[in-house]
């Protein structure tokens, strides 16, 4: 009997949170189209995301490209297809690894910080204070974060793509003995606009997912230090799971 109660409670909580999340997204769009933009807040948040994320983005890009070149060589050299390495590196990065790895890294770096900041604001009554100061928290907290991250992620992915290709180039030319001109020509010739745009579309989707999930987890966190901790963890875990699962459907879309 007890176990049925636990299962029942789990489902009630799950569907109640799902309902809350759906309403949260609907309210976000409602206030997005009836906006009151706090320009200072929007701009400063965009700058914050940019400055705090660039180093990890650069590291993610360069090492992914380098590893990809080495691993592809291991496989392709077995049937003398080493010349496909530049194509594989650029295609894998732009269509797949760039957006997914950037999404995961940003959910850990920015998503966790959004959730922790908003949850702390909730615990310390700053969200209530916003209401008493006639400030809508969707306009003041949610919209700047969602818009900043949704616009920032395509830029980050472009950077990861570029730096990753450069990483692959460095390893292929200096470690595997590829001809440098030929490597670059193969990379550029093989890449089509659709490949790049499919990655950018994924980036926009992931940026929206990370920011909206993190804002939701922060705003509906439980009270106390435990509440802030679990809001942060939930934000990263839920964002990551949604990134990986939606990635499949987006890949199907551009297949």
């Amino acid at each position, binding site marked *: 009997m007890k176990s049925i109660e636990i299962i029942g409670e789990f489902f009630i909580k799950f569907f109640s949170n799902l309902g809350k999340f759906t309403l949260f997204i609907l309210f976000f769009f409602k206030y997005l189209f009836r906006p009151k933009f*706090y320009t200072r807040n929007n701009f400063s948040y965009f700058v914050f995301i940019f400055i705090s994320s660039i180093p990890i983005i650069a590291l993610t890009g360069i090492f992914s490209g380098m590893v990809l070149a080495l691993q592809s060589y291991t496989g392709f050299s077995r049937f003398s297809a080493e010349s496909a390495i530049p194509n594989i590196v650029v295609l894998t990065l732009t269509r797949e690894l760039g957006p997914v790895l950037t999404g995961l890294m940003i959910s850990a770096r920015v998503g966790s910080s959004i959730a922790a900041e908003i949850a702390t*604001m909730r615990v310390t*009554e700053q969200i*209530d*204070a916003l*209401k*008493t*100061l*006639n400030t809508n928290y969707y306009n003041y907290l949610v919209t700047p974060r969602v818009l900043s991250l949704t616009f920032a992620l395509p830029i980050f992915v472009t950077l990861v793509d570029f730096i990753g290709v450069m990483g692959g180039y460095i390893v292929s030319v200096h470690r595997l003995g590829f001809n440098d001109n030929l490597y670059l020509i193969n990379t550029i010739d093989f890449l089509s606009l659709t490949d790049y745009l499919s990655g950018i579309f994924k980036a926009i989707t992931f940026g929206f997912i990370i920011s909206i999930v993190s804002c939701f987890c922060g705003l509906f966190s439980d009270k106390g230090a435990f509440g802030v901790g679990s809001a942060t963890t939930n934000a990263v875990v839920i964002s990551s799971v949604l990134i990986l699962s939606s990635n499949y459907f987006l890949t199907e879309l551009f297949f």
Partner: protein
Amino acid sequence: MKIEVKNLKKKFNKNLVLNNISLTIHKNKSTIILGKSGCGKSVLIKTIYKLFTYDSGSILYDGKYEVNIDKFSMLFQYGALFDSLKISENIAFTDYINNKMNFDKKVFSLMNDVGLDKSAFSKYPSEISGGMKKRAALARALYKNPKVIFLDEPTTGLDPINSDKINELIIKVIRKRKITAVSITHDIKSAIKTGDKYYFIHNGVIEDEGDCKKILKSKNKVFKTFVTGGKY
């Protein structure tokens, strides 16, 4: 503004926090809500402020159900200052976020009223003491010239000397600006000093009420136990 609360009930899940609460907050008077931690005091004032909804009962503001909460202000228990903004930006928050930049004069005047040192103007909340935070939060609450101010445990976390100073400041501000005040406190000394009428909440109901100046003469046993600090 006169506020009348009638038979107010508020639940959180299955937990009945406010059970048939009825009270009157008189215009330009200081009303004190007393009660032990977790008895529903903060929920009550947040419900009156319309930050929470309620399950049944009614709240009338000057005889009407509707009210513009622009006339209200709140001093939160720990100040609830925005960490990422300077003290001056916190005080003039609504003007600051709407890019109205000529608020310095008004902020300095309010800082002077609440006894906040001018050096705090450009500091962040993490750089000032608890007493200064309370003063800054009070200045922020007064910035929009409210008709009703809600004070959630204004002296919590302060030493007796600073508590006294904050109490005196609250009396001064309420009288000077002719504001209706609703305060939550555990501190009987503060209640006697700053209040006109008190309500004592116990287990979600109003157990006792009366004149703050006669607080120590109350014959209610539960309230007497609360005052003297024994077991209920």
